[in-house]
């Protein structure tokens, strides 16, 4: 089965590991050792000094909407694929995509009813206060 010799692969494997080790090792050996100074921990050693924290609160709804966007966007891709081949797929394709869209509609209704689409004021049912 193994007429083509395997050892080059093995050599290659180890060569990759060796290369990585050499680069890391050399850089830690040869590279300059910086002592800890105030400037060392700053994002930029020169230029504008940053002001404030980068960790500002972003509303959770933002992520929720982003997720919905991804999901529905992806589903649009499926519908697009069907639309391209609309005539080839015929009635069966039409029925299939109807079912697909129906499921999407149900999911949308569910999201709506659960209050997932509300922004700001919590109208969501059944949330623990």
């Amino acid at each position, binding site marked *: *089965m*193994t*007429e*083509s010799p395997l050892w080059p692969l093995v050599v290659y494997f180890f060569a990759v590991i060796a290369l990585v080790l050499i680069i890391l090792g050399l850089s830690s050996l040869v590279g300059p050792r910086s002592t800890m100074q105030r400037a060392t921990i700053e994002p930029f050693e020169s230029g504008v000094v940053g002001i404030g924290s980068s960790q500002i609160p972003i509303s959770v709804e933002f992520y929720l909407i982003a997720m919905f966007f991804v999901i529905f966007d992806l589903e649009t891709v499926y519908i697009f694929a069907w639309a391209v081949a609309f005539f080839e797929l015929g009635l*069966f394709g039409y029925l299939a995509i109807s079912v697909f869209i*129906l*499921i999407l509609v*149900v*999911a949308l*209704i*569910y999201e*709506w*009813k*659960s209050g997932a689409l509300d922004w700001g004021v919590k109208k969501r*049912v*059944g*949330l*623990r206060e």
Partner: protein
Amino acid sequence: MSGLQLQALLPIITLSSLILIQMMFIAFARNLRLTVSISVIALLLTALSFFPMVDHLPISATPLIQLDGFALFYSGLVLLGALMVTFLSYDYLRDQGERQDEFFMLLLLSCLGALILVSSNHFASFILGLELLGVSLYTMMSYPTRGLFTLEAALKYLILSGVSSAFILFGAALIYAIEGKLGFTELAGMNHTSAASGQFILLMGSTMIFAGIMFKLSLAPFHLWTPDVYDGAPAPVTAFLATVSKGAIFALALRLFTTTGLIDLDPLLRGLSFVAMVSILAGNLLALLQDNVKRILAYSSIAHMGYLAVAFVVAGKAGGQIMAMEAASYFLFAYFLTTLLAFSVVTIMSIADHEVDTTNLGDYEGLFWRRPALAAVFTATLLSLAGIPLTAGFIGKFYIFSIGVAAEAWLLMAFVVIGSGIGIFYYLRIIFAMTKAPRTDVKIEIPTASGWVAVVLTVSLVLFGVYPSPIIDLIGELMISFG
């Protein structure tokens, strides 16, 4: 698409539409009892929807789905497991506040994924089922807010599953690159047709698919996630993961490798033997001094999957595939019963404690004095896991052993024996802990639904341990219509 083919899709259609209905009910009339009732009805209806086609097996509905006796058996197991987990989860989640309904929807979705997996005959449906099963499972794991590590478990499982899915996809891609086909049946005998370089890539691809499946089955060396996830996940979800998820994936693996003929490839079997041996050894050794009951069960499941892999290897080696598949199926059946029962005991114990799951061995001390019936049930389970006669676990292990001996796979058998020997130690450790003097005399309430689950499973465990022939006959009958 003929009527018969449509019929073959009936279970999937039934379950899907009931999930949608349940979703609407949750949206408009949120009520936990109602939701759970719909879940139970959905599972029962799905089971019923298999019956009309029993006489017409096997049916291929589209290239993706192949319904045969094999799929039927495993679908039954999946539905049984899902039903039991539904009951357990109901008790587990009932007093955990509102908005628990979605959990049961996810459970049904997961179950749908498992059903697709067991009857899948194509890489596309394979991946589809796998992801449906997996994605719902991650959410189920992190759904209950109790417990400290649910989120950690879910994340670990999610990310590592991603790695394994990558393996599978890459493997499938390699095979497609050589053969240009993705259906299992079409791929049959592929190893005979290709040139040497193609063979090499094919082997590589199959190994990668294998590795992905091994991860899901928690076979060594892809097992490291198991204890963390078992421990972190809520007890009923762990039960689902250990039984339905693993069972469905095992069924798929069995179908994939027998239908495509990959199982006859010696190099693959060599790898699989290695995996089986390492799993048996690693699982049993890791469980040895463990003090966490859920982790012990996790390690024990690693070892059990190792035993199951032995059946797989033997199926390839001896050519006695039907026999090996019977053995594996019975073993898996026994494993289902036993594991579900073990986790139902853990669930019952955990419900009493509202903060976290009761997993510490110390919490089980004196159970014989506090709740003799529960302790007796747990003892039966552990004995079954250890493979002590008069339990289903014994018949399962005996089955594995007999095919192993028939195939003269002595090395594998040696590992099975050593593993079983080590196993008895830690199973007995739990039993001994239960006989110690109790630390508290707080009464353990047994919830109704979970209690009945435990009763039904215990009865079956002992019944099929003493009188296994009905199940063995059933399996034998169903396996005939395989392929």
